[in-house]
């Protein structure tokens, strides 16, 4: 399948996450308006940063004077899973120029990567993930715009109940990954157990992420070594 057709396939199959991304964009627009950011600054942020978790993290510190170091650190921490998404796609973006890969990686997105593992072998993964990303970006920008302009309607609404929406959407991706990926589940189970142990020990979030990913990685390596004898 050509890159163009794979990108179209990415756009066509992104409907589910288009809706959930729209919901988050709406909430981001409302939260950004409440933080006092000008509308076009918030839209610029959505267009250039393009990550829900990072943008929400930044909003928590959006007061004058801006604590740039704190914002940088929190955005880096919540975006660190992008490192793992990029690593997972290492063997799947071949056949494209380095320049194209560098530019198109801007649109690397979780649901696109997760769903790309469920596609047939002949689908061009870079095209697919980028098409998916175009759809997510469209949803993210439109919903941010709507949220910013409709924020006054939600001025009295308590959005605290939907704080857990992020983990819910992540759970949908985990389930798609679990059912669609060829990977065996042992590394993920070990990661979850290590994350729980570290959480109970009161570890910082970044240590929980680091420890559980390292644990899962070790299990995956042991599995591979066993397979190769």
């Amino acid at each position, binding site marked *: 399948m050509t890159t163009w057709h794979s990108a179209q396939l990415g756009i066509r199959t992104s409907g589910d*996450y288009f*809706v959930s991304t729209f*919901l988050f964009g709406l909430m981001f627009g409302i939260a950004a308006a409440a933080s006092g950011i000008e509308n076009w*600054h918030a839209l610029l*942020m959505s267009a*250039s*940063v393009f990550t829900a978790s990072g943008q929400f993290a930044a909003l928590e510190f959006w*007061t*004058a004077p*801006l604590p*740039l170091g704190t*914002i*940088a650190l929190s955005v880096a921490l919540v*975006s*660190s*899973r*992008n*490192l*793992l*998404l*990029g*690593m*997972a796609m*290492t*063997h799947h973006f071949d056949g494209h120029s380095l320049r194209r*890969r*560098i530019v198109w*990686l*801007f649109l690397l997105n979780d649901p696109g990567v997760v769903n790309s593992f469920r596609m047939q072998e002949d689908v061009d993964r870079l095209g697919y993930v980028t098409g998916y990303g175009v759809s997510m970006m469209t949803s993210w920008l439109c919903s941010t715009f709507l949220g910013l302009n409709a924020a006054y309607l939600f001025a009295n609404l308590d959005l605290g109940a*939907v704080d*857990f*929406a992020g*983990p*819910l*959407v*992540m*759970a*949908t991706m*985990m*389930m798609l990954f679990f*059912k669609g*990926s060829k*990977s*065996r589940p042992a*590394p*993920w189970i070990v*990661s*979850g*157990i290590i*994350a*729980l142990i570290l*959480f109970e020990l009161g570890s910082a979030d970044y240590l929980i992420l680091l420890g*559980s*990913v390292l*644990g899962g*990685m070790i299990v*995956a390596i042991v599995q*591979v*070594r066993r397979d*190769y004898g």
Partner: protein
Amino acid sequence: MVDANATFIAIAMMASIVYLTRVTGYFIGLQLRHIRGIQPVLEALPGCAFMAILAPAVRQGSISEILAMACVVLIMWRTNNVVIATGVGMAVLLFGGPFLDTG
């Protein structure tokens, strides 16, 4: 009120950081790809990251949040429908929370 210059600097900094995380992981993978059998290890990583975020979130979740998560997992298991799963989960949070999380 945050001034415009500081806002631009912050947005440019955030965009650079996030883009770097996207590109860096891929290039680290390219350096490792010659290692025999590395592909399944790399492909397992996103699931590990999801679990690292999900497990503590569920552990500290309220009754309605745990119930919402259970609904999402069950619906995804049976139907693979993200919209229905997320919609039901959100409905449990919004309408079940006031009843389930009292006290």
